[in-house]
């Protein structure tokens, strides 16, 4: 209120001063100027007064102008009486036009101020809505919202309370800290509807609701807001409520998605493990039941073949069970790496004895360069890696395709082991995924557990395993191991 009175005074004073100055300039020449000209000049202080002080100042300016006009420029000078009729007309027109001008100009500036205020509201809303569509963590989002609300409405303090399972809790605050009693005053009482006007000790609350359900409360301390700011605040509160609701829905959607993905993976695991276990079992069962049922009809060669098949498939089943147990160990974090110096040629021979049938047939060849040093590794784990890589090659190659395992120096401190086959290779679409759990090349192709275990074991040594795509036919899997270095004898 004091502000607008000061404005009126300012406008009126300005009008008074300008009127005085202009009159002082014109008084010596008043016979030459005539009433019309001096009336026209006295329009200036009125317009200035209105522009500076609004309509009330305008009216005061008109009064000042009227007095100055009548006293100084309408004969007889120095009195309020008016001589000629045309001077009456001039005076009346001056008063009427000036009042009209005061009204128009003040309305214009009021409209401009209103427009500016609206623009300001829109800008504040826009800033806040940009904040609301931002994609950051809930905590930082909430604190930015309360800070923005505090700044936009010049509050002393703002607090945002959210509905949690055990009631309303303060999720974010800005400005001066809240005391326990003040926070308690924010809490809604039973059967008392929460409204923007709810005020107690300068504390006001605003309910946040979205899609008909309560979301939380916004609490304020600070100046009482005027009608328009209150509307604006309510709009802001609605937006905040909506974006909180949106965040909640998004979290829910994410949780559902994760649950679905988990279920899908579990199904994939069940199907893949089931396939991998049942196929060798089926072979064993068919072979054994054939021997029991039709023994007389079998010749020696077939009987030997069936026995050999049972033997090989039982090994395969055993390896698979080992892999599944290893997988459990890796996933539960119970993997222990027992490092010791290992001679690679010996390890190759030892670990691949279970591949005896393919070794004997000359399908699998092992070689190690002469300069290969001993390595530091867990022989059990690396043996399993070798078996898995060779078995993977066997599974994906036509029968009889040569498979080679080579050991060579990689660099000064490393040895590289390469398992290469000359089969169809890994398709471009699968390259990035071969080590992924449950990745397999086609339906019913098994769990792909072997390669992911190989990867886990090599990485447990702090080393690397990769698929070499140097353009040669077939698939080449490589992994490195650290060379064994005598204590003190570095390099």
């Amino acid at each position, binding site marked *: 209120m004091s502000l607008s009175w000061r404005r009126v005074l300012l406008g009126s004073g300005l009008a008074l001063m300008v009127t005085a100055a202009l009159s002082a300039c014109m008084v010596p020449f008043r016979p030459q100027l005539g009433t019309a000209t001096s009336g026209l000049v006295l329009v200036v202080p009125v317009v200035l007064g209105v522009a500076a002080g609004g309509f009330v100042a305008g009216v005061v300016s008109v009064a000042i102008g009227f007095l100055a006009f009548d006293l100084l420029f309408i004969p007889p000078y120095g009195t309020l009486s008016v001589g000629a009729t045309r001077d009456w007309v001039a005076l009346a027109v001056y008063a009427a036009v000036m009042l009209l001008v005061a009204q128009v100009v003040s309305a214009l500036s009021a409209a401009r101020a209103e427009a500016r205020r609206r623009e300001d509201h829109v800008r504040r809303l826009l800033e806040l809505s940009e904040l609301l569509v931002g994609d950051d963590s809930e905590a930082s989002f909430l604190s930015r919202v309360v800070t923005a609300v505090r700044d936009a409405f010049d509050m002393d303090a703002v607090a945002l309370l959210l509905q949690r399972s055990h009631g309303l809790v303060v999720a974010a605050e800005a400005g001066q800290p809240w005391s326990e009693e003040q926070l308690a005053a924010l809490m809604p009482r039973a059967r008392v509807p929460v409204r923007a006007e709810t005020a107690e000790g300068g504390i006001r609350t605003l309910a946040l609701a979205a899609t008909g359900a309560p979301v939380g409360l916004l609490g304020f301390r600070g100046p009482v807001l005027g009608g328009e700011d209150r509307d604006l605040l309510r709009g802001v509160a609605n937006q905040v409520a909506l974006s909180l609701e949106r965040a909640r829905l998004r979290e829910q959607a994410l949780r559902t998605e994760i649950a679905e993905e988990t279920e899908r993976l579990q199904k994939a695991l*069940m*199907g*893949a493990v*089931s*396939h991998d276990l*049942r*196929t*060798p*079992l*089926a*072979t*064993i*069962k*068919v*072979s054994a*039941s*054939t021997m029991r*049922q*039709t023994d007389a*009809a*079998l010749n020696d060669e*077939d009987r030997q*073949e*069936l026995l050999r*098949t049972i033997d*090989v*498939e039982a090994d395969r089943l055993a390896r698979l069970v080992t892999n599944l147990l290893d997988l459990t160990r890796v996933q539960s974090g119970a993997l222990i790496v027992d490092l010791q110096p290992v001679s690679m040629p010996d390890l190759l021979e030892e670990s691949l004895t279970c591949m005896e049938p393919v070794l004997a047939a000359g399908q699998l060849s092992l070689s190690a360069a002469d300069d290969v040093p001993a390595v530091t590794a867990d022989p059990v784990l690396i043996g399993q890696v070798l078996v898995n890589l060779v078995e993977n090659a066997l599974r994906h190659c036509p*029968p009889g395709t040569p498979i080679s395992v080579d050991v060579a120096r990689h660099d000064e401190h490393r040895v590289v082991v390469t398992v290469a086959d000359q089969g169809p290779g890994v398709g471009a679409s699968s390259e990035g995924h071969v080590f992924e759990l449950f990745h397999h*090349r*086609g*339906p*019913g*192709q098994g769990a792909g557990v072997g390669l992911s275990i190989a990867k886990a074991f090599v990485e447990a040594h702090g080393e690397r395993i990769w698929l070499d795509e140097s353009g040669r036919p077939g698939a080449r899997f490589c992994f490195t191991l650290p060379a064994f270095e005598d204590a003190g004898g570095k390099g």
Partner: protein
Amino acid sequence: MAVVLAVDDDSALLRAIGIGLKALGHSVTTANTGERGVSEAALVDPDAVVLDLGLPDLDGMEVCRRIRQWSDVPIIVLSADGTEDRKIAALDGGADDYMTKPFSMGELEARLRVALRHRPALQPDDAKELDLGPLHVDLVHHEARLGERPLELTAREFALLTFLVRHAGKVCTHTMILQGVWGPRYGTEVEYLRVYTYRLRRKLGDDDGVALRTVPGVGYRLTVKTTS
């Protein structure tokens, strides 16, 4: 003695099945991919096909569908993942029977025997009379006889019996029967089937020559009883 085509990507299993079937007096052709399976089926014109559903190149169901485009050869599918829905999908897609790995040679032989025995029972669609062992169905007069005994059947029971006789030996899924007998808008009303198969079984009796068997969770199969 029959010509059997076995399709599986696992060479050890193929070898074992080959030796076993040969010992039982069958002649065996093998294929380790779906494409090869389809072309072998065309080349050797087998009496039965044993088909693994999990093949590296073509889905087993696709192989089944392709063979069905020109041949009525009985197809027994093998599934390794043990899930019902794939089995049912394969049966709906034209397979006659299914087995879950692992299985014994005896089981495979029994299924082959059923498939081979009922192969001639697949009669042309425009046949006016159908026969299955002692069961005789006259489609023109809507009459069915079991040996000398006439069967008193309602229209729906007669339609169900006709459908099962047409697909004798084959495992018919619930969906197949409901759509074939009740109409294309049916498919999930398994309880209808329970009622009608119960009535049909009672009318067929259990000492006579045909058996209507329930395949749990999948469907029904009508077969000729053997004395063995």
